[in-house]
């Protein structure tokens, strides 16, 4: 009988121990990483989203709970844009730094209620400011962001017929090397494209090096092969130029990276052109050309670490 009582007691304590371990309270602090990168968003309506990446060492942390965020803003010290939290989604990627494993999250927001047609907000060294329901605040450095409020596909003097990006590997890092774009003048008399702006800080289109294409190239075609097989760095200087569109055509427009290779994969395109003596800009909504690169130190964006107490 004694043996049975001891066995029951032993089982009870073992089960209680397991339950206590499983019921471990959430940590009082959460470690957060942000990386300075380049963002480009065309805001077309109140529901349009912009997103930033943060990495957390605790997936159960309140910072990952949308309901815990009372308000948010993008702030670079000169400009503040209020944001409405829309979604926090784990990307499935993780990142190890100083022996700590962080999970990557995409924080998405809308600019609900704010409308400012044609205005470009250029944030430099901006912080994503999150104010939590418990009264605490976190400001996380997210780098540079260009945000344009406007209508894509306007005005109607031209249109695009095809769009994708060519990615190359340079110094072991995959990065955008150019865009393939089909352009069509809708005026009957032609338009002259004077500039193409990818709206992404640190990346510029080199319109002067435009190549007229007979066929669509593969999305990983080496950039040098567009210029007779020569080697061409993604860090070359941009060359200004024009594209005279009488009817339409398919073009490769290389992009150059300022100072270091950038990891941008999603950006808007603003095409400046002249038509009958006037100037206008045609906008293409920010498009995700490729799966975002996972949070990484490889591209040289400065990483910031934070410890946020509940």
């Amino acid at each position, binding site marked *: 009988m004694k043996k049975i009582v001891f066995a029951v007691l032993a089982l009870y304590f073992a089960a209680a121990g397991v339950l206590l371990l499983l019921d471990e309270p959430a940590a009082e602090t959460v470690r957060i990483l942000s990386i300075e990168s380049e963002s480009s968003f*065309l805001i*077309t*309506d109140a*529901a*349009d*989203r912009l*997103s930033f990446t943060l990495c957390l060492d605790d997936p159960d942390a309140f910072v990952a709970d949308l309901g815990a965020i009372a308000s948010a803003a993008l702030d670079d010290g000169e400009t503040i844009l209020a944001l409405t939290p829309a*979604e926090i*989604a*784990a*990307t*499935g990627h993780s990142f190890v730094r100083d022996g700590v494993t962080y999970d990557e999250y*995409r924080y*998405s927001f809308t600019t609900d209620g704010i409308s400012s047609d044609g205005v470009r907000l250029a944030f430099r060294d901006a912080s994503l400011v999150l104010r939590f329901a418990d009264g605490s605040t976190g400001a996380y450095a997210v780098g540079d962001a260009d945000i344009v409020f406007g209508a*894509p*596909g*306007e005005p*109607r003097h031209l*249109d*695009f*017929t*095809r*769009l*994708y*990006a060519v*990615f190359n590997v340079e110094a072991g890092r995959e990065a955008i090397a150019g865009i393939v774009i*089909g352009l069509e003048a809708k005026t009957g008399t032609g338009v002259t494209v004077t500039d193409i702006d990818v709206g992404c800080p640190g990346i510029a289109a080199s319109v002067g090096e435009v190549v007229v294409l007979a066929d669509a190239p593969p*999305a990983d075609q080496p950039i040098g092969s567009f210029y007779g097989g020569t080697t061409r760095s993604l860090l070359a200087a941009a060359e200004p130029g024009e594209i005279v569109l009488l009817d339409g055509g398919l073009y490769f427009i290389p992009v150059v990276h300022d100072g270091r290779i950038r990891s941008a994969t*999603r950006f808007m395109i603003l095409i400046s052109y002249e038509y009958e003596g006037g100037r206008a800009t045609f906008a293409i*909504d*920010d*498009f*995700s*050309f*490729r*799966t*975002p690169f996972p949070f990484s130190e490889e591209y040289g964006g400065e990483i910031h670490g934070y410890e946020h107490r509940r």
Partner: protein
Amino acid sequence: MKKAMVIAVLAVVAVLASRSVAADTYQTYQEIVFAEEDERLLQDFAEEDYADYMTHLAGKKMFGWKVFVVTKGAEVEFVSETKLKIFNNGFSTIKHDITLESKLETKFQISATGSIGVKAKGDVKKFDGALDASIKTEIGYSKSEVTSERYEFNIIVDPGTYVTIVMRGKGLVSNGVAKNFFFWIATKQGGWETFTVTTEYYEIIKEKIG
């Protein structure tokens, strides 16, 4: 007793002979090209190759699965099915808000032939029973969570035109054959395959209708 033995043997033979395919999305991709020419998808295994791979599972086992890996983490490039096609048959321009969503469970896909089963638990697909863990150990796969990323794209579609969004990408394919034993009797066997999408590239095409 003899009749029972005959029925049992016939049942086992029927299970082993079954070649039904449990397919996943990647098998509808327009094109999948291996970086190495001699690699191939499970659906393209020749009968003689399949028989040859099965010889690697010749020995008997009391319980559980024996797994033979034919292809491990082979790099592929693919052109996916069209993600979206929008027609404007009307007489006025229309504006579309397109939401594109990429889910992790579509990034890890599986298929099987023979009597190997594929189960869907929620949004996650798995091979039947302990085979899932055995295969994931063999190919070094550990991720199974479901996540998603989505964003909106706003586009104008003129009358008499249509817009297509095509996804291309890169991925890793592993495949092989497996056999399950119950008291040294083979109860299930067939081919298995995993397809992991590592990178997706998107393209927009606007064309005239007709």
